[in-house]
């Protein structure tokens, strides 16, 4: 006779399933509680003035526009620095570098770089970008103390180094996922290596590269520690903007030599150095909510781009 009846339940299986399920739902619950708290407490503070006004009265009133603007500027320049550098490095590692001992060490180091505490990057930025490169430039160009001081560009550069491993690793994965058969097809038609990379590999890797960029933006915009020494100001209502004039025609441009306010740092000082905690508490919640929404919006933009690229590849 065939044993068709369910004799006994698979107890181990059932228990395992419940453990996994409970773990999962406690995570979702924690996330919901966190977001719920921030949204309910922060939403009341959000207003047009809060977003587009300067902090006032020792930060107990007013808005956070300089911090928002600073965050966007720093992140924007960070991406401009990190993405080309990271993507090119990944292309070199994946397509050109031979599988040697030395190159394997480099790959491992890149992965390890992602695990270094961010405060170390901050100190590195201070030591390398400001004191070494900045002061060095000042000496060579005889500009006094122009480059060798905290500034937006150095903060962006340091954050770029911080997010480089993310960009490189996700680009490597994206390049790796392009089927070998497509490369063969291209070589078989008489394409050179570069033509193959440019026309076949990169278009298919673009969604993956964008994923890396998305992760990098989220990481960079949320960091506080690395920018402590690199130009993040306690209170600076002036935006890091200078008019760039060509003849009589002037447009305001981000000035990378200036200091700036930063949302994550702003939240930190509101929480630790407030002169009037009762009054700053709602502002803190509001700022936190704005930071979350801002990262979310930046992510959405990148996700829309990624969706478009994928669609153009017919992968949907």
């Amino acid at each position, binding site marked *: 006779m065939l044993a068709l009846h369910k004799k006994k339940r698979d107890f181990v299986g059932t228990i395992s399933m419940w453990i996994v399920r409970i773990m999962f739902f406690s995570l979702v619950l924690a996330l919901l509680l966190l977001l719920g708290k921030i949204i309910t407490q922060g939403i009341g503070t959000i207003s047009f003035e809060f977003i587009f006004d300067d902090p006032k009265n020792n930060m107990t009133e007013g808005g956070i526009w300089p911090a928002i603007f600073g965050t966007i500027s720093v992140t924007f320049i960070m991406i401009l620095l990190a993405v080309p550098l990271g993507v090119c490095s990944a292309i070199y590692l994946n397509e050109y570098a031979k599988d040697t001992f030395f190159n394997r060490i480099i790959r491992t180091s890149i992965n390890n770089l992602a695990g270094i505490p961010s405060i170390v990057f901050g100190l590195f930025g201070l030591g390398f970008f400001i004191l070494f490169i900045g002061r060095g430039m000042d000496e060579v160009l005889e500009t006094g103390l122009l480059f060798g001081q905290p500034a937006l560009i150095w903060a962006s550069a340091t954050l770029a180094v911080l997010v480089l491993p993310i960009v490189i690793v996700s680009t490597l994965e994206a390049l790796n996922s392009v089927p070998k058969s497509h490369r063969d097809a291209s070589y078989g038609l008489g394409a050179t290596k570069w033509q193959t990379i440019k026309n076949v590999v990169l278009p298919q890797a673009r969604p993956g590269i964008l994923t890396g960029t998305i992760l990098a933006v989220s990481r960079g915009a949320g960091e506080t520690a690395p920018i402590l020494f690199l130009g993040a100001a306690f209170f600076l209502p002036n935006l890091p903007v200078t008019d760039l004039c060509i003849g009589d025609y002037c447009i305001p441009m981000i000035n990378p030599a200036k200091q700036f306010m930063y949302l994550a740092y702003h939240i930190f000082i509101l929480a630790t150095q407030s002169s009037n905690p009762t009054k700053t508490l709602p502002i803190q919640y509001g700022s936190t909510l704005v930071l979350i929404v801002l990262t979310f919006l930046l992510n959405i933009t990148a996700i829309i781009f990624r969706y478009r690229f994928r669609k153009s590849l*017919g992968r949907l």
Partner: protein
Amino acid sequence: MKEIKIVTKDLNLYYGNKQALKNITLNIPDKRVTAFIGPSGCGKSTFLRVLNRMNDLIDNVRIEGEVSVDGVNIYDKNIDVVNLRKNIGMVFQKSNLFPKTIYENIVYGPKINGINDKKTLNEIVERTCVQSAIWDEVKDRLNENALSLSGGQQQRLCIARALAVEPEIILMDEPASALDPISTAKIEELIHDLKQRYTIVIVTHNMQQAARVSDMTAFFYLGELIEYDRTTKIFTNPSKKQTEDYVTGRFG
């Protein structure tokens, strides 16, 4: 026999320390279909890839001996591999169309060779699609994603794409092994038409297919060329016992 197009002489190929091809000496005739048969791992696909130097892309491959096309040694230092591959097209086992439109897939080769004139490109697309018997199926959907075609259509489009760079030789690595009988028949018919103008070398697992499409057949076993002769001879009256056992299905 017709003119000889490809000659290999004492060809040995090693993957690291493992020898994959042993002393292959073979003449492939011009404007004929030559089939390579043999059990999996016998080196027939590896040998096919020797002919357009696709093995260059794999690390650790070492090649000894001589391969010449039209009397020119293609492993000579002065040979431009990129140019070589333009002259020797390749169709792979599984369709490897790019995730681009049908049109873009065909013009990929001509474009990287510097042809940008719209009219010329359109002509190439029509000519190659007609040649590969797929024009009627794709002419109204040239701007659709190539991956939306059926498996058999994709493989014929791969052939069209290979024809677009105007090669003299077409290498086919089990081009019909993933296709249904009807699509396979279409590919075979196509091979028959193409041999008027091209030298075709085809690797196949399917012995009936080799018998149907080829003029010459080479039987490989464990990296060695066991027998090479006219297809009719190989399938009706082979000289070697091993060949007979294989073509009659006694082993392999």
